[in-house]
């Protein structure tokens, strides 16, 4: 059993993951299987599409009476707001459906709705990207969007606002994301479970309830991605899975926040050089950082 822990005071020199190299080849195969489950990850960059349809979009938008246009913009804004807290992302198809037979004006309406979302709510729609096969390839658009908060971070970080039950779940998410981050961006399920058990999160009395269900929700919400590996876990009885940051986490949670979070967990026990160590641990030895910048392969 892996005995690494991030809850204690020991620091970060123990972050070489033996699993990393052995899994990369087999991973590809496993992930291809997974693709069939992730129907929403359509690998067509929307930006390209928008660019070609832009001119046509503007022309067809002009043909729509101002009153109808106003109606469409409102509908898209409300659709975005009402999906803000739902489990799944807003799909381009959902927006099209709202537009009905004005589908060709989508880009125009979308931009206007964005303006209004920023002005009224301080939020904007951001396209989720797919890192493809285990982050090996460049990021691609997925035609799915989520709302991103664009208010200054110092406003959001103040503990002024109590996000209620979300806070607990976000806390759990942050813990899991930090586990993953300091392991070069991937974490095997067996290791995750032993870490969660160490934090007493698997006990019946845990206030998180059924963690398996929570994990499923986080995957569904695209905060986490789970890939099947083609080997068994250490007990040799269960198929091993691997967790990574999901598209939504990459959009919503800047690396800096993550570093800050880990530092806060350590509190006054933080060893010197913790920040550098975290950042080092988060980068696979053989590639670029698992941050939203596209990697070379």
């Amino acid at each position, binding site marked *: 059993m892996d005995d690494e822990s991030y809850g204690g005071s020991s620091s970060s020199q123990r972050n070489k993951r033996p699993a990393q190299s052995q899994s990369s080849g087999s991973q590809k195969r496993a992930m291809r299987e997974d693709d069939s489950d992730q129907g929403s990850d359509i690998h067509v960059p929307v930006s390209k599409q928008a660019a070609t349809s832009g001119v046509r979009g503007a022309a067809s938008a002009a043909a729509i009476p101002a009153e109808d246009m106003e109606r469409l913009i*409102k509908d898209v804004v*409300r659709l975005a707001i009402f999906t*803000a*807290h739902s*489990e799944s992302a807003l799909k381009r198809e959902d927006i099209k459906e709202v537009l009905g037979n004005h589908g060709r004006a989508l880009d125009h309406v979308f931009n206007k709705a964005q303006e209004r979302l920023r002005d009224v*709510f301080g939020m904007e729609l951001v396209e989720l990207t797919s890192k493809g096969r285990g982050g090996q390839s460049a990021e691609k658009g997925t035609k799915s969007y989520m709302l991103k908060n664009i*208010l200054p971070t110092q406003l959001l970080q103040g503990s002024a606002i109590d996000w209620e039950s979300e806070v607990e779940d976000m806390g759990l998410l942050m813990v899991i994301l930090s586990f993953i981050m300091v392991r070069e961006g991937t974490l095997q399920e067996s290791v995750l479970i032993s870490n969660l058990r160490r934090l007493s999160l698997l006990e*019946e009395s845990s206030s998180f309830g059924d963690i398996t269900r929570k994990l499923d929700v986080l995957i569904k919400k695209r905060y986490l991605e789970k890939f099947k590996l083609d080997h068994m876990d250490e007990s040799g009885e269960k198929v091993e899975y691997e967790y990574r940051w999901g598209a939504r986490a990459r959009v919503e949670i800047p690396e800096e926040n993550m570093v800050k979070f880990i530092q806060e967990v350590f509190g006054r026990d933080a060893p010197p050089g913790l920040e550098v160590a975290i950042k080092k641990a988060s980068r696979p030895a053989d590639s670029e950082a698992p941050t939203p910048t596209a990697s070379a392969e």
Partner: protein
Amino acid sequence: MATSGFTDLHRLYLQAAISKRLMTEATAQDLYSRVCTVTEEPYDRENFSDFITQLNEGLNSVELEFRRAQDEVTGVPVIALTNTNGQKIAQVATRYSPTELEYFKHLLDAIIMADDEAFCISSTAALHEAGKLKNKENKAVALTKKDAEALLDRFVADQWFIQSTAGAYSLSMRSLLELQTFLKETYDDQIQECTLCMEIITKGQRCTVAACSSRLHQHCASAYFKNMARPVCPTCHSAWDGKILIGLSDRTAAPSTVWKRRKAKGTGINGNGAGGSADAAEEEDEEDDDN
């Protein structure tokens, strides 16, 4: 396009309000004070009402609005961000699939049309409704009992329905506020309004005279009758005993209508090994719960 004139104070408040859906007025006020602190704006308790008015003016451009009401059960003032364009349920509850929405409508219908102004549906009846669903092409799209059960839990978690201890579902304040327009337009005569506050009423008291239209929320009744030596109906002036209730009440608590809910509990992430025996233990637990 005219802009909302909002500052980050307004935006931050809205973001918090969206995540909460429905707040008591006290919570809403408290939130206002905290948002003021974070954005370094001056806070004055007295300004809260104006602040909400400002928000509603800006929200007009997206047809949303903060509405206030008093909770039918507790009488506590609540405030919710609602859709003013509420003719279609689909626009309110976009996060449900068409089949799920259909189920929601069926339930809503059963609750509103319940005999004797009970305005609730037992969980058995609610699950029964799940078997009657049809899609637009009139094809049956019945939900399995398990799916219906999970969906009912979601409706409650999303604050559309409230569930009594006996398991019966009735309308939540969120539904009453957000579906106001829809309910009034769709059900017209079936919808009762409180004689005093004129808001929709699904829980409260009614006049002893069957033909009289008086209905009063509990909190409206206690406010209205407070200084009356002998309470009389505000409409027909006959004696008011306050004992004839509408909405969810003890009559729905009859044991036969109690449907045993299975909670998806505690298999845990490491529950793979002892699956069978754990399940058996769970069954026993439930038996115990019921006694």
